[in-house]
Structure formats: structure tokens, C-alpha cells
């Protein structure tokens, strides 16, 4: 199966992995992106993800289809969370199956890299001092970076 989904509720990696079960598969590689407590030297308290769901799912499906052809995958599934996530929460899960491990590793890397570069998904960091910033949206004249807002 191929599926890319935007999810407002927590991701269940075990269920996703079970959905990839296939007797032809000799390798399953999964990537988990977690919310971490620091970015660019700034202490992060939480992350807010927002997506343009219809286009994100369509573009995500294209990425999975590209990976399937390029790496001769058997299955590929990915889910990206939206909403306000706390440290340690699972933000994105990518899983692929293939006959052999080499193509599974490469395909998993391809999918997460393309997803980060292409999907209409945005991330707002909330810092421990109360300030916030939309990542990659900084413009000249900002002080704290990305469209930064001072502490509330």
C-alpha cells in the first residue's frame, strides 16, 4: 500500500508498521521525527505544526510514488502530525518495505528529505522564554529570526 496522511491525532507507529506487513518484504526501515528541546541554540518548549492538508497529502502521495519506483519498494507509508506537540512527541513517521535493506534505507531517507522540502507544512517553535517563531520565515528586520513574536 501507499499512503501519506496528515493527522491531528497522535501517530501509532505499531499500527503503521503492521499495515506494511508483506511476505515479499525482507526489510522494513522506519524513521521517526521527534520534537526536541533545542533548535539553532535556542531552548524549545513545544512545536506547533500546521498543514495545508489537501495539497500536503497529494504531494506526499507523489513522493511515496516516486520512492516506490526509484527504489523498487514493496510498501511505503508516512504520517505527519499537525497541532501543538510537546517535547518527545512523534511529529512524523515514515516506513518502507523492500526485498532488501539497501533500497529500504535509501528510500526512507529520500521520503523524509523530500517531505521536509516539498510538503506545505509549517512549524512554529515556542521557546522557553515565551517567544515564538515560524521556522524558515525570517525576513530582514526581524530580531528573533523567523517572523518572530516577542514573549506574550
Amino acid at each position, binding site marked *: 500500500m501507499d499512503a501519506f496522511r496528515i493527522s491531528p491525532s497522535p501517530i501509532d507507529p505499531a499500527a503503521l508498521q503492521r499495515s506494511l506487513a508483506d511476505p515479499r518484504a525482507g526489510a522494513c526501515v522506519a524513521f521517526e*521525527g521527534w520534537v526536541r528541546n533545542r533548535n539553532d541554540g535556542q531552548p524549545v518548549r513545544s512545536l506547533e*505544526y*500546521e*498543514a*495545508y492538508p*489537501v*495539497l*500536503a497529502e*497529494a*504531494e506526499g502521495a507523489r513522493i511515496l510514488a516516486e520512492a516506490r519506483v526509484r527504489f523498487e519498494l514493496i510498501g511505503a507509508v508516512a504520517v*505527519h502530525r499537525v497541532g501543538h506537540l510537546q517535547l518527545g512527541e512523534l*511529529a*512524523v513517521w515514515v516506513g518502507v518495505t523492500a526485498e532488501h535493506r539497501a533500497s529500504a534505507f535509501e528510500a526512507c531517507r529520500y521520503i*523524509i528529505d523530500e*517531505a*521536509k*522540502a*516539498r*510538503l*506545505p*507544512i*509549517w*512549524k*512554529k517553535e515556542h521557546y522557553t522564554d515565551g517567544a515564538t517563531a*515560524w*521556522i*524558515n*520565515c525570517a*525576513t530582514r*528586520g*526581524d530580531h528573533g529570526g*523567523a*517572523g518572530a513574536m516577542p514573549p506574550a
Partner: protein
Amino acid sequence: MLTVDIHYFAILREQRGVSQEKLATAAATPAELYEELRARHGFTLPGNRVRAAVNDAFVDAAAPLRDGDRIVFIPPVAGG
């Protein structure tokens, strides 16, 4: 004049203060429309850092707009 349906996400939604609006415009392309909106609402992102989608598909910034189009301006993305 065209009437278009504009949807905002992330930093543009916050700077506009709404997530959606209908607007009558003389803009012929997404690039022209973005400049009009940027001047009116003070968006900080320059047009060359924003992509456009029309009716849920990516389009070129110079693509023609049509009456009733649903337009989304896409700030620099940061998934993962």
C-alpha cells in the same frame, strides 16, 4: 475584476488575522495578487519566498487567475 477565494496558513494567517477571505481583484496572476495583499496587509515575506497553489495544485506565480479560483500562498515550508 475577478472574485477569488484566498486561504491563509501559518505566518500569513497570523499576519492577516483571518484564515480565509473573498476578494475582488484586478490582479491577473498569483504574483500580482500577492503583491496587492502584501501592500494591504503588511506581509513580511517577499513574493519570491512564497509559492502559490490554485484549486489545490501548485502553480507558477505567473499563471493566469480565473474568477472563483481558490488561492493559497505558501510560505517557506518546514515539515519534519
